[in-house]
């Protein structure tokens, strides 16, 4: 009998099981941001409790921070008083409890799921939680990583543990090599299109196959990031040389410690004999660039397809399609390429890493953003990504093309800061959620890869050929 990587991680962190099927697992790393933590800190204070292990916690403000700012920007400069209060609270709570924070002025501030890995704070084999559903991103490193709610944030702060039920095992085997112009974002959108937004509910999903082995850590992160959009709160990739190389490069650990760790990390892969509750095979060689047309991440079509017709569907299905079309301002059988776009957003914890920016910049080199586009912004995921891009001169390509080069944060992924869509504006976005109102009240979001977003910026619409 063999174990899946999820089984191994589970066993490694299991403190105890309860009679009723619940288990208590140990938490190695806890990331915090300003939106889902204030009520947890308040709860802690009310009970006169202290964080169990201070060093396990790392905080950064990301959701509310304005992306138009420079080094001299301070919290006081946040115009929206309510946003400011959240960032101030995080600052205060971190100071009160002695939690390490990369604050708004830190060079390492950024989207929490981007900075974790690049600062070497995400290590293979860790259990990682954060009050944020895209914590699944860290699963790319062979971590047991999942999003939790605010009550659980408080629980983890107070007890360094989490009460959970073991998930079932699913494996997605991505085989083959991709076509030109296709990226990991397309692959994960295609997956969600195939299994639906509830397809992975109740499962820890391992991504495997030759395609996964061949891609970079950044690309693996993009896929694990969006496993939650497929319903799976845990997405995983078995550890291999790429994982270890990345961690070696980004970690500050001493050499001996790393060498000891590597021996352990190398065991973090699914055994050959392991049995999954569910397995799905996907041939990636047939996948085209994918774009969402509706208001759920499963409403995905090929970039050169028509909006699906509702006529052929059951009444129940038709209803949700019609609601989505209505919201998105679409009619039956329109082509995606018929739609005029107003804004372009390149960023979010899905696609704001250096590789994503390189991919977009390659398309934008020597090109100009279409006059139809009112605003095109690129928001690097972290201070480090921004710095690297500036070193490579990528920022210049964006700026010359007509993009605004911004400071790190979640930005228009959810519009808690001033970066938002106005009602009915249509946006080409590299983020992960196209829910109603996600990027601004009545805004219309189409999710796609950085490359497709860049092409949409140049053309003002989705191209029919790439």
């Amino acid at each position, binding site marked *: 009998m063999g174990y899946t990587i999820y089984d191994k991680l589970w066993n490694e962190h299991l*403190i105890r099981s309860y009679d009723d099927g619940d288990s208590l697992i140990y938490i190695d790393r806890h990331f915090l941001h300003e939106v889902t933590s204030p009520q947890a800190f308040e709860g802690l204070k009310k009970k006169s409790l202290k964080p169990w292990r201070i060093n396990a916690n790392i905080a950064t403000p990301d959701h509310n921070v304005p992306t138009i700012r420079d080094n001299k920007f301070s919290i006081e400069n946040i115009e*929206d008083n309510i*946003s400011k209060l959240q960032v101030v609270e995080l600052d205060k709570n971190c100071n009160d409890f002695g939690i390490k924070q990369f604050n708004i002025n830190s060079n390492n501030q950024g989207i929490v799921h981007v900075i974790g890995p690049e600062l070497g704070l995400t*290590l293979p084999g860790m259990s990682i939680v954060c009050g944020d559903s895209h914590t699944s991103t860290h699963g790319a490193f062979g971590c047991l990583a999942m999003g939790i709610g*605010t009550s659980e944030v408080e629980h983890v702060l107070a*007890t360094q543990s989490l009460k959970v039920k073991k998930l079932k095992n699913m494996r997605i085997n991505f085989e083959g090599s991709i076509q030109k112009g296709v990226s990991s974002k397309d692959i994960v959108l295609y997956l969600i299109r195939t299994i639906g937004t509830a397809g992975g509910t109740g499962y820890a999903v391992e991504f495997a196959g030759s395609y996964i082995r061949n891609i970079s850590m950044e690309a693996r992160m993009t896929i694990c990031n969006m496993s939650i959009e497929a*319903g799976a709160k845990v997405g995983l990739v078995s550890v291999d040389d790429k994982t270890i190389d990345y961690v070696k490069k980004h970690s500050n650990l001493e050499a001996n410690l790393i060498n000891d760790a590597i021996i352990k990390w190398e065991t973090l892969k699914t055994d050959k004999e392991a049995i999954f509750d569910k397995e799905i095979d996907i041939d990636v060689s047939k996948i085209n660039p994918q774009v969402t047309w509706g208001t759920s991440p499963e409403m995905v079509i090929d970039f050169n397809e028509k909006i699906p017709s509702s006529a052929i569907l059951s009444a129940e299905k038709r*209803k*949700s399609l019609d609601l989505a079309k209505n919201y998105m301002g679409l009619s039956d059988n329109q082509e995606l390429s018929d739609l005029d776009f107003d804004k372009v957003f390149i960023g979010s914890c899905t696609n704001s890493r250096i590789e994503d920016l390189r991919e977009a910049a390659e398309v934008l080199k020597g090109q100009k953003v279409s006059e139809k586009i009112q605003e095109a912004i690129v928001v690097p995921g972290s201070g480090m990504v921004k710095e690297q891009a500036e070193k490579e001169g990528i920022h210049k390509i964006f700026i010359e093309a007509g993009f605004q080069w911004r400071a790190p944060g979640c930005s228009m992924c959810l519009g808690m800061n001033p970066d938002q869509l106005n009602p009915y504006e249509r946006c080409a976005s590299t983020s992960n959620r196209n829910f109603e109102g996600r990027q601004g009240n009545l805004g219309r979001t189409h999710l796609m890869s950085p490359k497709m977003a860049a092409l949409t910026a140049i053309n003002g619409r989705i191209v029919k050929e790439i």
Partner: protein
Amino acid sequence: MKDYIEGIVAPIDRDNIDTDQIIPTEYLKSIKKFGYEDYLFDGWRYTDQGRLGMKKAEREINYEFILNNSPYSESKVLLTRDNFGCGSSREHAVWALRDFGIEVVIASSFGDIFFNNCFKNGVLPLTLNKTEIEELFSVSMDNPITISVNIKDKVILFKDKLSINFDLDDNLAERIIYGLDEIDITLKDSELIKKFEEKRKENNPWIFE
């Protein structure tokens, strides 16, 4: 102790209602744990754009939305379809339901994180199969009905017309019934956690750097 809930059913005939719909991002800016009642389903409940701090009385009400109409404005039970509460982990979604007065959400499936969040806040998410969901829709769609949910016996009753048994883990049922504080319970295992931690540190020192 809360082992019995009786309330009017508000049917919302939609799949995949995500937590961004249950409470939009704007209201996540609050640092409080209560006071979200006026923001529940904000995008559907109102025709204007709200801001944190605005009260229902200041808003433009969408009277086509079920929860804005009597008697549904008093509903304690929400009936919906697949994958309710998918998306963002925001516990604010449960706080908004709770503050509005919703005590039970019935669906054919739930987002995992939302499901967990419910039990921390005394909101009961009940999973029924699609046939049962359909039955409930058919009796509640046209006229308001009051059902009772007996958590101890795990049964939903609508007069003598409908009786549906549901599955619910005993420990989860107890959390709703007694409103237990989980941190207190876990801290009873402090010694166990400490021991585990020490061993983990010995075997994986790099994690504790």
